[in-house]
Structure formats: C-alpha cells, structure tokens
C-alpha cells in the first residue's frame, strides 16, 4: 500500500522560552488525492501544525518533537529545495512591500526550479506560470501591481504561485478567506479537479461550511490536542461542536443540495 502523502506523528511543539505547549502529541495523515480540513478554535495550534507539516518552521526547532513524513521520507532529511518541490505552505496573506506585477509574483514560484545562472524564466517556466495563473483566475490581472490588488485577488496570486512551484501537496492557511463567493466556489471546483490529478490538500480555516463542502476528512484540534480525526459526519457531531465552541450555540444540519454537514448558529 502507498504510504500517506503527508503524515505527522506524535507532533508536540512549544515556542522557545515558553513552557505552554502549542501542540501536544498530534498525529494525522493525508492520503494522495485527499482534502483534509484542519479545524478548531483560535489558538488551537492549526497554523503551527500546518507549518510543521510543511517543514517551514523557523529555527531553532528545539521545542519540536515528533515526526513529519513526506511519503516514506522524514522531512528533516530533505534539502529545503526538495521539500519545496514536494509540499508548499500558502500563507493567509501575500506580503507586498515592493512593486511586483502579479505575473512576477507568480513567477517567484519557479525559483524552486532554478535554471541557468543568468536567465529569469525559461520557456517552460513561462508555460507553467501561465497555466497556474489561468487555473487560479488571475491571468487577466497579470500586469497589475500586487500592492494595488484587493486582499482576495492577492490570495488568488498566492495560490497561483504555489501551483507554479510544482508541488502536489498544498497546505492552505486561511488562504481563501478573503475571496468573494464566486472565487471561493471556483477555487472549490479547482481543488476537486486537481485532486483528480493526484494533488492533496490540507485546509486550515474557520469557515466550517466551506471546509465541509470540499473536504474528505477533517481533523479537529482544541487547545493543541487532537479531538477527533476522520470522515466529516463522524467528527462534526453537535455534542462535540458545542463542547469546543461553548458560547456559539451551534446546531449541526445538512446542506439540502449535497447532504454535507453544515453548522448553524441557534
């Protein structure tokens, strides 16, 4: 059997000089062509887990215990570039301090595949960039300065940059939160399509109703601990949701069209 595309095993983490652990013994796996939603309240350790799984936690990693594996390989044994070709972390925001066009920002994804010393992009690079930007609906504003784009448009650019990087495991950290409904729906379809091509995704989000529409499995974190992990219906029970979000008064229902579990405020 094929090993999971991405696996975290007994991951614990506390920030340097802090005794409060952010993650306690969390284990979770992502199979090929799977979308995993990583859900939980603020401060539950979702983003930290995502960064650890992507292998981009800054040094020192002294507070980190446990293992992350890309397929059969332990992530610590990989070079930074090999890691970036396999899995890519997409931040909630695209930092834009300098004048860059959307096209240039996406072309940075190709830095992971360096060509000759004094050539910015090969013909193949240009093809990949165009493909990535068309997939994520930003080809039409490729010549605009990223500093003048809306937050949602910048998130599309981030997604395109990640696709251009060529990794087939994408870890999205609130990376669709500022898109409008059209774009969110379109990105949902894109994820399903890419899934069919062997891509895998981990989504960190607070938008349960989006996550439940797209994800195959979900992992629920609370206070740094894994509460539940499995198929949506099994994890998102009303009792569990009320326990984790006691003040929200949540009701678990169903999407009348798709039958997927949805949350409502009472």
């Amino acid at each position, binding site marked *: 059997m094929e090993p999971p595309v991405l696996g975290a095993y007994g991951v614990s983490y506390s920030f340097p000089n802090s005794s409060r652990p952010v993650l306690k013994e969390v284990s979770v796996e992502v199979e090929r062509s799977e979308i995993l939603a990583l859900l939980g309240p603020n401060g539950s350790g979702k983003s930290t887990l995502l960064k650890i799984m992507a292998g981009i936690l800054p040094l020192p990693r002294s507070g980190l215990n446990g293992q992350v594996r890309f397929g059969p390989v332990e992530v610590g044994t990989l070079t930074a570039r090999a890691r970036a070709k396999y899995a890519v*972390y997409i931040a909630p925001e695209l930092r834009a301090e300098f004048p860059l066009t959307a096209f240039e920002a996406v072309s940075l994804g190709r830095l*992971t595949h360096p060509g000759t010393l004094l050539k910015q992009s090969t013909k193949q690079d240009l093809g990949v960039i165009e493909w990535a930007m068309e997939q994520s609906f930003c080809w039409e504003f490729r010549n605009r300065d990223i500093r003048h784009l809306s937050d949602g448009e910048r998130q599309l650019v981030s997604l395109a940059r990640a696709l251009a990087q060529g990794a087939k495991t994408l870890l999205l950290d609130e990376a669709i939160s500022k898109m409008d409904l059209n774009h969110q729906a379109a990105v949902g379809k894109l994820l399903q399509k890419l899934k069919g091509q062997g891509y895998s995704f981990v989504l960190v989000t607070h938008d349960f109703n989006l996550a439940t529409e797209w994800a195959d499995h979900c992992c629920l974190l609370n206070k740094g601990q894994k509460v539940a992990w499995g198929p949506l219906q099994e994890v998102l029970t009303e009792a569990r949701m009320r326990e984790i979000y006691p003040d929200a008064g949540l009701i678990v229902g169903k999407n009348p069209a798709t039958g997927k579990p949805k949350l409502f405020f009472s």
Partner: protein
Amino acid sequence: MNRLTGYRGYVVGLAFWALALFLALEMGAADHATVDIITKLRLPRALLASAVGMGLAVSGCVLQALFANPLCEPYTLGISSGAALGTVIGMALGVQFSFIGLAGTAFVGAMIFAVILFLVSLKQGSSNLILLLTGVMLGVLGSSLVALWMTFADLNGVQGSLSWLLGDLSSARIGGSLMTLILVVILSGSLWFHWRELDALLLGEEAARSLGFSIEGSRRKFILLTSLLVGLCVSGSGIIGFVGLMVPHFARKMVGSLHLKLVPLCAIWGAATLTFADMMSRSLFKPFELPVGVMTAVIGAPLFMWIMLRNEKKEAQ
C-alpha cells in the same frame, strides 16, 4: 505598471555615468586644468565616487530585500557608525594607516561592528527583526560614542573628522580608488549572482522558506557581503546619505523588483549619481567645496519625494 522596457534604463544610466565622469574630469577649482590635476586629483576622485555610489546602491538594494523593508539602507546595520568611530578615535590619537589606500582606522571600526552583527546572525533563532534591531542599536551606540569622543577631543581633530562624517572623497588616490572599484565590482557581482535568493525574500521570510530557501544561510551570506561592501565604501568616502536609499527605489520604478535586472541597474545608477553629485559639490561654489553627503541629501531628498509622490499619483489614477 509603467516601466521602461528592454534595456533603456541601462542605456540611459550608462550615458548619465559617462556624462558625469566627463564633467568630473572637466570641472573643478582650476579653470585650466593641467594633465597632472586631471590624472592625479580628478580621475581618482571620480573613480572613487563611482565605486562608492555603486557599492552603496547595491548594498541598499540587497538590505531592503533581505529585511523585506523598503526603508532599509546601507547605514541601517550600523556599520557606518563603526567606521565613524574608528576614524574619530584614529584622528584624535593621531593613528593613521592606510589599507589598500583607504582610511585604515575606518575600515577596522566598520569590520569590528560587522563581526558583532555577524555573530548575532550566527546565533540560532535570531530573526531578521533581531538583526535589524541590533544594527540600529550598533548605529546609535557608535554615533553616541563619536559624540562623546568629540566632546573631549581638541578642536582641530574634530574639524577634520566632521568633514569626513559628512562624506568626503578628497582623499582619493589612484591606487586606492582603483582597488576600491575592483573590490566593489567583485562584491556587487557576487551579490548579483544570488538574485534568486534575493527574489525569494521579496515576499517575506516565510514565503522564502516555502519556496525552498534556507533563510539562515542566505542571511549570513548577505550580512557578510553587504558589511564588507559598506565598510569599504564608508572607509573610502565617509558617510554619504541617500544614495543607498534612493537609487534602489528609483531603479525599481524602472525595471521592477526582480533582482536579475535590478542589481546591475542599481550599480550603474548609483555610480552615476554619486559621481555627478561629487562633481556638483566641487564646482557649484568653487573654490569652496561642499561635503558630498550634504549635496546628495540636499538634492536627493526633495527629488526623491517628488519622484515618489508623482508616481503614487500616476498609479492612483
């Protein structure tokens, strides 16, 4: 975005540099310059101005990318303060020696501060923020110690170091100038070859990491190379403001922020700008000479604000 296409930015920059060099050889205190004046005084000075301008602009560009902060400039890391401290102490003690034709005491001061900064960057877990704060702190420490020293030093020593602190290219000798120019070109070139790492840093540390770059390694490399470059420039010329901040922004307006194109453009425009500014500072009020640092700031600051504001308006439309 409005950008110059193709090679226009380079061609215009090279033409400006050539013009500045020509004027720098032509203009000066003496109306009928002899061959001696041109080859022994003006040529070394023009070469030194080119080297220092190039070095300041390239290191400014690199530091802005490294810290993902458009406000960074060569002096942000405080290395210039080390050079200033070295010079002032050297002048007061009457210790003067030269290192490849540069002010040796300044170079020693700059390198001591650079080593401190480099040691901080070696420490595991030191972030860009910590480095930036260390640099700013070293800068303040250095200039306070300079002020303290000047309070106790005798007046003649203070006069000499004051003009140096405001930027002074008059000590240029042909050997030192050529040596500086060669070293600046080598250091700038080796920074340029790392354009991929600089590009990766444009979107911040985290993005660079997820693009597969080891930030810790890049940081050390860039700190080391820019420290050497800034130390070299400051020892040759004293403290010259604005070139390192202004030229990279100006160059980005022309070709965008990707470093394969940006670094050479910064080098050309930096060299041209400082050569031109030094020529002006020598010939505007002759026979008096303005410190070139005053010149770059007096012309540079308003021009910079005008260009930036005008562009903001254009882009807003």
